[in-house]
Structure formats: C-alpha cells, structure tokens
C-alpha cells in the first residue's frame, strides 16, 4: 500500500504544529520550514499523480481497517488533478508570502494557519467518507476565516465575520444532510451509501441532495449565495486571496459539486439544470458587477464569481465536452486568478493601495509586474493561445451541441464583458502614459513566483494537445462521465 496519498495531509499538519511549537519567534526559519514542507508535499502529490494517471486509482485504508469499519481514502484522476494543482499553486504562493508577509506581525502563525488550510484542502480531495469530508471542510474553512482577518483592520474583521456566519450556515446544512443520510442508510461510506440509494424515496433523496447542493454551492459562491465572496477575497492578504480565489473555492465547493452531480446523485439528473441556472446567473451577475468596480482586488473577486459560473455551466451541460470544459476552465482560471491576486499584491506592496484611480501608468515604473499582470488578465479574458480561450470555446460548443443555444450566447456575451473590463483596467492602470515615472520594481522574490505562474498560464493550453490530453484530462473526464463510486470494489488495487 502506497503511503504517498496520505503524505501531503500529514506533512502539512506536522508542519503547522511544528512551526507553532518551535519557530514562534523566528520569522525567517518559519518561512524556510514552510517552503520546504510545501515543496515536499507538492513532490509527493506529483508522484502519486503519476501513479494514478498510469494505474487508474489508489485506495488507502486509514488505520488499516477496511470497509465498513474504517475510513477509506481514494485518489483517482479527477481528484489528482485538483490535488496537484493545489500543491503547486500553494508552493508559488508560499514563496511569495515569505516577502509579502513581512509587513505583518506574527508571521509564524500565518504559516501555521496556511499549512492547516492546505491540509484541509488536501484532506477533502482524498476522502471517500462523507463525515471525513465534512471534518476537513471545517479544518480548511476555519483556517481561512482567520487568514482573512489576519491584518486586523476594521474592514478585514468585518469581511471575516460575514464569511464566518455564511460559512457556518453552509456547514450546518451539510451536517444535517449527513445526519439524514446516516439515519436512513446507517453508513457514511459513499459507495455503501450509493448502493442503498435505490431503496430511498425521491423525497428523501431530494432533501439530502438539496441540503448538500446548497451547502456546497454556498462555498462555491454561485450567485444567490455569493454575498460573502467579494468582501472576503478582496480583504484578505494577497497570498491568501490568491489561494482562496484560485484553489480554495474550487476544492471545497466545485470539486465536491462535481462529485455530487457526476458521481453520487446520478439518479437525479435535474441537479444539472439547477447548476445551469445558478451558473448562468453567476456568470452574468459577476461580470456586470466586476465592470463597475473601482477597487482592483474587488474587481478580481467579482470576476472569480463570474468565472466559477462558467465551470458550473459546463458541469450543468455535462457530456464529454462539458466535463472537459469544466476541468480545463478550472485549471486555467486557477492559474491565472492566483497570478492576478499575487500581482495586485505586489502592486500594493510597492504603492500601498489597490484603488484603480490612484494607480496609473504602472508600465513605466514596474515593467515586469505589468507584463505578468497583463498575461494573467489576457488569460482570464480568453485571448487565444491561453487555456481559458480553449476552455470557454469548449463550453460554448458543448452548450450548442446539447441544445442550450441561449446559454451559449450568454457565455459569449460574458466573455466579451470580461475582455471589456480587463482591457479598461489595463489601459488606465498599466499602459497610461504618466510624466517622469520613477522606477520601483517589486522585489525579486515577489516577481519569481509570478513569472512562473505567468509561464504556466501561457502554456496551459498545451494540456489540450492530443497526445497529452489522452493521458491526463481524458482520464479525469472519464471519471466524471461513466464512473460512480459504486464501481469501487474494496480489495482491488492494493
């Protein structure tokens, strides 16, 4: 049995406790420790990912107890993609935060909380037990509440408060659904639960599915449930915003929604219609709200709502193209949105503000930052060679093929709106001519992670090249297409 699957969680938790115990005073050592631990688990996730993509899936039994006694863990191509993305982006973000967080006090605690958040995210991805998912969901969420308020300014505390309360409502719904599932089927293991679904009445299924769906949709910030996101994501420190917007909402929200829709509640295809509806709403609403924002960070936060809407729409359409679109869009958006948040963080680090009006003509003073920033913006806006263009194209084609022409038109309109507000932003903030500019570039340690991410954004379309696509994305898509947890036979693949 390969221990690689559990290693990231164990490493992150160990790192968090160790930093809190040993390096409480020493900021530099804490940073070095954090970087090396994240690097370790990124390597572990990549190695296990290679294993998964060649051999199918890894099963692991915590405590050595097989079903029905213990908690069963699983890594399959779908979760492996999320797993690798989380750890790679986390590595760049933690590199960045060693410099960025110098402004804040008590940074060792920042690293501790950051590690705990990552542990929670990794824990969700590998679990096959409903209650275990809930526990790690809480681990990740509580760490993120604190990280949002880390700077202790009034607005940050307020954002954290709203986020906490909304998030609590989500987790209550999930807990209630778990109680109902347990009460009827007497099990928490997802495959065992699924083999019982045929005996459940539709009312019961809808009750559970509705509770779970609204809980996780709240964490994904689909539109009727989005109110907390712009506050929380715009007020957090830049590295935290990057991981929250780039990966966090996708792991605790979108990933579980994909599992619910595609793998668990296959008997309720109507959930896809709901997703289409909410997705289209968030796409349009997020795009329109982003257009009117003055604060750049807030604009990015609304843009996240809009882009996650695309993912939800793709998931709602389903089929091979829809699923491929969701995955591709998730990867491309995760890379470019974390790049953008790191970028605005660097600008804030030098200029001390994120208001668009006070930032003019940065191209002359910060050329490298501008270059990376425009790469990210063009990436999200969907300019051809980059991944987002292809993913949006795939989703639109999927919509047309499935007969949702209206949705396809909406997708195109929102893509144009996105391009519009990013071009507007670029014209004033980056490329406006100013008189006698002063050159003050961001520190190299801030530029390096941004450069790497910009490169990844630029080449992310490569995943769709036929030879590579067969080995990576297609396997994950086949998990979403014609695989359910029920197919898992305990005892195979040990």
């Amino acid at each position: 049995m390969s221990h690689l699957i559990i290693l990231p969680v164990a490493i992150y938790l160990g790192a968090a406790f160790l930093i809190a115990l040993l390096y409480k005073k020493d900021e530099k050592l804490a940073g070095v420790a954090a970087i090396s631990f994240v690097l370790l688990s990124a390597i572990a996730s990549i190695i296990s990912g290679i294993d998964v993509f060649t051999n199918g899936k890894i099963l692991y039994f915590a405590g050595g107890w097989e079903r029905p006694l213990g908690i069963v863990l699983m890594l399959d191509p779908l979760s492996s993609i999320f797993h690798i993305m989380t750890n790679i982006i986390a590595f760049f973000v933690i590199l960045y935060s060693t410099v960025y967080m110098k402004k804040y006090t008590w940074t060792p605690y920042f690293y501790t909380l950051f590690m705990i958040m990552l542990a929670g995210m990794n824990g969700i991805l590998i679990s096959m037990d409903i209650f275990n998912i809930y526990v790690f969901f809480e681990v990740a969420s509580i760490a993120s509440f604190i990280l949002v308020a880390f700077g202790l300014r009034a607005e940050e505390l307020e954002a954290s408060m709203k986020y906490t309360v909304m998030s609590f409502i989500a987790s209550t719904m999930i807990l209630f659904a778990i109680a109902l599932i347990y009460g009827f089927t007497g099990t928490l293991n997802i495959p065992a639960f699924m083999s019982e679904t045929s005996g459940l009445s539709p009312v019961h299924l809808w009750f559970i599915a509705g509770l779970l769906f609204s809980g996780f949709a709240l964490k994904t910030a689909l539109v009727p449930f989005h109110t907390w996101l712009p506050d929380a994501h715009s007020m957090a420190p830049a590295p935290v915003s990057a991981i929250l917007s780039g990966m966090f909402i996708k792991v605790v929200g979108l990933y579980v929604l994909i599992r619910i829709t595609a793998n668990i509640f296959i008997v309720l295809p109507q959930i896809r219609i709901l997703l289409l509806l909410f997705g289209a709403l968030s796409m349009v609403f997020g795009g329109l709200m982003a257009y009117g924002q003055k604060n750049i960070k807030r604009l990015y936060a609304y843009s996240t709502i809009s882009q996650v809407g695309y993912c939800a729409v793709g998931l709602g359409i389903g089929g091979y193209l829809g699923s491929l679109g969701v995955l591709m869009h998730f990867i491309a958006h995760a890379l470019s949105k974390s790049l953008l948040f790191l970028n605005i963080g660097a600008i804030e680090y030098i200029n001390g503000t994120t208001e668009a009006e006070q930032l003019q003509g940065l191209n002359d003073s910060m050329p490298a930052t501008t270059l990376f920033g425009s790469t990210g913006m063009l990436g999200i806006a969907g300019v051809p060679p980059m991944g987002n263009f292809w993913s949006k194209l795939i989703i639109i084609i999927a919509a047309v093929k499935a007969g949702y022409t209206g949705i396809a038109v909406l997708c195109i309109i929102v893509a144009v709106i996105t391009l519009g507000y990013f071009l507007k932003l670029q014209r004033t903030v980056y490329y406006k001519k100013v008189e006698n500019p002063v050159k003050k570039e961001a520190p190299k340690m801030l530029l390096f992670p941004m450069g790497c991410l910009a490169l990844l954004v630029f080449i992310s379309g490569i995943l769709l090249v036929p030879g590579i696509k067969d080995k990576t994305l297609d396997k994950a898509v086949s998990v979403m297409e014609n695989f359910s947890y029920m197919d898992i036979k305990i005892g195979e693949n040990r």
Partner: protein
Amino acid sequence: MTLNLPLLVVLMLLMTGGCVISITARSLTSSVVSMGTAGLILSILFLLLGAPDIAIVQVFVEIVALIVLLSTIRRETRADMSSSGLYGVLTLIIFALFLFVFMLHGSEIVRPFGQPVIKMGAEYIKASPVLLKAPNTVTATVLDFRGYDTLGEATVIFTAIAGVIVLLRIKGRKDE
C-alpha cells in the same frame, strides 16, 4: 432511570423553550444564560439516550462556552436593540414552509424513532471488545476506527485557538 417518550418530549420542549427565550430576549446576559440552560438540559438528554461520554463533554463545553460569551459581553452592550423587521418575517415564513414539508414527508426522510438501522455501528460494537480489547466502543471509534477524523477535529480546535491568539494580538501590521 429508563427513558420513555413523554419524558423525552417534555425535556426537549423545555430545551426548545430555552432556545426560543435566548433568541428573543432583549438582554444579552439572560440570552446567554438561557442558552446555557438549554445546553445543560441537552447533556441530561445525552445521558438518558445512552451517551455518557458526550454528556460529560457537553456539560463542561457548555460551561466554557458560557464563560467565553459572558466575558465577551461589554458593559455598553447589555441589550440587543436591533430589530429583525421584514427580513425576519420572511425567514420565518420560509422555515414554516420547510417544517410543513418535513411534517408531511417526515416518515420518508427519517426512520421511526427508536428503531435505527445500525450497520457501521454494529461492526464497531462487535469489533471493539474483540479486536481492540477496548470496552468503551465510543472511545475505540473516536481514536482508532475513525482516528483520522479525530486528527481533523484536533486540528479544528488547534486552529480556533490559534485564531483567538492571532485575533487578540496587539497590532496586525508592523507599521501601524
């Protein structure tokens, strides 16, 4: 004391009453105290329902939570003067609707009380004394069969305490 339905219902109604008072009371102190009362009744319920482990935890957690909340209330804000208004009425209507659906289809959503289907739990009951030599099945479940969950839970409480420490530090940024 053996449990019967009327006793259970009376205790639960008392508890619900405590909850309603603690939500509606104007004075924050009495709100918090009646919440504590409800929590203590809950621990009695746990004891009656065959969960002594949880009952002990509930009593002391309740006291800790009560002290934390009472120390949070400031002299200036003893009363809750905010009004819920239309928004509150709307939520009430939605909840009433939910409750109505639950009452209509309740028997499809939950099994009848007192006749659970024990599947995973039965395995624990059988395995714990034999395989682990641990008479207390709950502890065996928490720390061995589902120890991975408990690790997450220990992390949650660790995180919350780190959060309290972090939030109550003197200043957040070095230049302030």
